[in-house]
């Protein structure tokens, strides 16, 4: 749907730039150091899962990727371009707000608490960014929004306001809203944590469908089942560092580090 080739079972296309590359990323809030040097790479077309106890910095890292948080040290690249800065020689220049906004168009984000616009219907929520940011015509945007709502199984709820939808439905509208900008990367910040258990499945189905279509996804999650089935890579974070990484099956079934073992024994 992004015009990219659908995902193959083999390695990503040759010579491709990593979709996300982090090198020694540090982030502090005041005196509290939340990220203490994160190094990782997300390949195009990959479903990349971040797990770890709360307060481990995984959500903060996710928010750094689209510059909702500024990093204090290290380098963070999306699709080969530096996030939030421009490098000339050995000097870094902060990007203007408008330039940051331009880059965010290509990165979709789904929040734990949905953050739908409550004064707009589901359809208007999905249409908003294409019309306002991309300058799409209302007719075009409406048509596309209806397709997306269809895709997440909510075409019949197009005229409903968020307050009239269940949590699971709201989250699926939020996914459709992010997809409407045709992003090349999707960030999921604990997308099912605020949902009633019986609603989690619908949202995970939509995410699974999205993964199969070849979307690059970075997912902060507590859904170990989803990580194992859909994930291509998995990183376990604790206290601001990457403790262990690898294929989800390996890390989840045969964790090497003691901290990973104790975390997994609590959640599995």
């Amino acid at each position, binding site marked *: 749907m992004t015009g990219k080739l659908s995902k193959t079972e083999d390695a990503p296309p040759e010579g491709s730039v990593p979709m996300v590359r982090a090198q020694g990323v540090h982030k502090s809030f005041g005196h509290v150091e939340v990220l203490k040097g994160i190094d990782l790479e997300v390949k195009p077309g990959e479903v990349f899962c971040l797990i770890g106890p709360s307060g481990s910095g995984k959500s903060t890292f996710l928010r750094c990727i*689209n510059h*909702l948080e500024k990093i204090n040290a290290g380098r963070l690249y999306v699709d080969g371009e530096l996030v939030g800065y421009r490098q000339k020689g050995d000097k870094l220049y902060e990007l203007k*707000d*408008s330039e940051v*906004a*331009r*880059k*965010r*168009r290509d*990165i*979709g*984000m789904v*929040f734990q*608490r949905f*953050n*739908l*616009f*409550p*004064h*707009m*219907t589901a359809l208007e929520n999905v249409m*908003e*960014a294409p019309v*306002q*940011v991309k300058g799409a015509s209302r007719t075009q945007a409406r048509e596309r929004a209806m397709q997306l709502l269809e895709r997440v199984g909510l075409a019949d709820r197009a005229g409903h*306001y*968020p*307050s*009239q939808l269940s949590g699971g439905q709201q989250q699926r509208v*939020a996914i459709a*809203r*992010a997809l409407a*900008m045709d992003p090349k990367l999707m960030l999921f910040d604990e997308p099912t944590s605020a949902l009633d258990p019986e609603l989690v499945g619908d949202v995970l189905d939509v995410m699974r469908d999205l993964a199969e279509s070849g979307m690059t996804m970075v997912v902060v999650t507590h859904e170990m089942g989803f990580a194992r089935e859909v994930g291509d890579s998995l990183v376990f974070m604790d206290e601001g560092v990457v403790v262990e990484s690898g294929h989800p099956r390996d890390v989840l079934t045969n964790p090497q580090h003691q901290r990973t073992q104790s975390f997994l024994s609590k959640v599995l």
Partner: protein
Amino acid sequence: MNDIEKTAGDPGENPRENLGENPGGYSTPPAGPEAIKAIPVRHYGRYVSALVAIAILVATVYAFSQGDINWHAVPDYFFDHRIITGVYKTLLLTVLSMLIGITGGIVLAIMRLSKNPVTSSIAWFYIWFFRGTPVLVQLFLWFNLGLVFHYINLMPIYKDYWSNFMTPLLTALLGLGLNEAAYMAEICRAGLLAVDEGQTEAAHALGMSHSRTLRRVIIPQAMRVIVPPTGNEVINMLKTTSLVAAVQYPELFRYAQDIGQNSGAPVEMYFLAAAWYLIMTSVLSVGQYYIERYYARGSSRQLPPTPWQKVRANMFSLGRPKGAVSA
């Protein structure tokens, strides 16, 4: 839901198919125990307090009707052309000064919340000054500012003496509008702060700029918080316009005073003015209700009924026990 229907005793049928219709066994009320018919408690205190209140009311009305007031003067002058002009000018003043107030208030609120320390302290200072001084004093200050500025000179466009420039209307508008802006700023600020931070993040994550986020996402949601107190401000403003009689601008109250002095019925004209102010504030209250209803969309599952819908619901529910119909 399903559990209840299952226990209702139709294990053979799929309860989901029966949703919406009356599932088996519910068409007639179950033949349970007899409904309770008890003698209600008598609230004698309520009768007494109602009687006392009515007695005081009657006595007051009687006193006014017997007082030294020529009531016929009120209907005689009620639609006098000067009064009608006054009503028109009062409304004009209210609308224009509220426009100045709301625009100024939004600008000041955004200044107050800005990260620039200079703009935010200027806004703070403005609010401090205009909220801290009486509006009547401010009106006189504007009126007499000619002592400071002898001329007004906008080089190529306009040049005149201050006293010619500062007409009573302009004095009134500036005095009322700029004072109102200080109050509106605080109302707007509270509204903007009431919108969840996640909304800004979601809008930014979609690639919306600051100003677009403000216009499309934050302000429409802030309106729900801003509109009710703003309605009160409009009603307050309508009444406060009577103060500008002091700076020579003729509006309802001033015309009523003039007529009262010429016709020898001053008190009667105050009653007349009061009646007109009441009519106008009542109309405004109704308008406020509908505007609030508009901005409530999306925030509650069901819009509150309009007064007309309420009347209709009440008519249909007549004769039925209370509570049987959810209005």
